[in-house]
């Protein structure tokens, strides 16, 4: 059966494709996700248990099942440019309930990693990275807390990188190995 024509060549091509829009699909995207997430995302049969378990779904347009479909179909642009990608609290409820033993949460994490490679990432993630790079802590100490710690009989700074700043160099080496800080600085500057 011939597809209905709308006299829009681009749309007609898409509609003629009875399986899915091959022009939008990137099979490599699926493969990359399978590798990074270490889960069998391609086994998803779209039952929707994940979305039904999701605490973010009732209060936003975020639908984990949709992202699973995008993963299977290789719809890279659609997945990575959707701001809902960042609304997963990583609670793993979907993962525990998935009847196919897939970890949708890890698929989201893999997609976020791939989005970062395209400079798509909310600021707060990069700021945490900068804080850890500079102090070793994502939530560093402050003066109010130092005073409270002293009152409790604890050292003003905990025995972490705060008390042993000589360890920070090693942390910076690890982060620099992956060029993470450099990218974070660059992306934040561009904003």
């Amino acid at each position, binding site marked *: 059966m011939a597809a209905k024509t709308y006299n829009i060549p681009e749309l007609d091509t898409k509609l003629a494709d009875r399986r899915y829009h091959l022009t939008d699909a990137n099979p490599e995207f699926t493969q990359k996700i399978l590798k990074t997430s270490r889960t069998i995302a391609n086994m998803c049969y779209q039952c929707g248990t994940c979305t039904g378990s999701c*605490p*973010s779904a009732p*209060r*936003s347009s975020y639908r984990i099942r949709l992202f699973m479909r995008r993963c299977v179909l290789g719809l890279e642009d659609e997945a990575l440019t959707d701001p809902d990608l*960042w*609304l*997963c*609290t*990583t*609670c*793993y*409820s979907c993962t*525990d309930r998935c009847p196919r*033993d897939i*970890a949708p949460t890890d698929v989201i*994490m*893999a997609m*976020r*990693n791939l989005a*970062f490679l395209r400079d798509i*990432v*909310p600021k*707060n*993630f*990069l*700021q*945490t*990275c900068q804080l*850890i790079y500079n102090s*070793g*802590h*994502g*939530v560093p*100490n*402050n003066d*109010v*807390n130092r005073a*409270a*710690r002293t*009152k*409790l*009989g*604890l050292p003003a700074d*905990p*025995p*972490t*990188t*705060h*008390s*042993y700043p000589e*360890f920070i*160099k*090693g*942390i910076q*080496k*690890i*982060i620099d*190995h*992956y060029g*993470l800080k450099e990218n974070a600085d660059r992306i934040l500057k561009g904003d």
Partner: protein
Amino acid sequence: MHEYAFFLGCIAPNRYPGCEASAIKTSEKVGIKLLPLKGASCCPAPGAFGSIDLNVWYAMAARNVVLAEEMKKDIALICNGCYKSIYEVNHILKHNDELRDGVNEVLAEIDMQFKGSIDVWHLAELYYDEKICGLKKIRDSVTTPLNGVKIAAHYGCHLMKPQKERHFGDTENPMWFEELIEALGAEPVQYRNKMQCCGAGGGVRGYDIVHALDITNEKMINVREAGADAITEVCPFCQLQFDRGQIEIKEKFGDVYNIPVLHYNELLGLAQGMSPQDLALDLHAIDCTPFLKKVL
């Protein structure tokens, strides 16, 4: 005495030092000695950091594990987020040669090597574990039973989930935390959807605070419905979300709960006779006084 390297994380030492102080003091009374893990860093935050680059997350968490390996001690920690990073990366690297080799290549640059020679535990599971501590020892250590208060248990997500990569069993309706609360003389209450997330994880608190608070708000409604006098959890990040979150919920949505939020270690500290001052409860955003009046 069972000795562990005490991994602190960020929020406990830097925002709720009472969690750290009570962990050290309460554990000693039940035969667990927590030793400082010198030079440890952020775990790093599984949501905020792992979302950007999982490989760096593996390497950074592995560095913290190696610090404990060098001490030849298992790690004990008091935060679910830290548990996700430290426990899970330790577990993954032990069983995945490809990832371990990749991490070791990076760690070699700072003269470290991941060997996979230690295990990682949450202090709460050690408290519950009959081989290490167990409910009886907890019960025996209590000098000021917290009689007459109802407490809602918040398990949090990353301690028990994903179930197949943990060893806690059922994640739909577990009861072990309630047993730990009961051991202090308090009455644990059941509430609707108790396994729901606090809303803060995955970087959502930083990305969309209203969305995160809306999840927290649902949880607070359910907790209030059950008539709880306080919430207890085993994760300082959840604690922050419930405690400061209640102030933010009041500002953003106008809903008021005033239900104090205490880490299990802080509750145990109170039950073992520590004073509210010893626990820096004044640093909590929600006033704990009405709750304290009921128990002390």
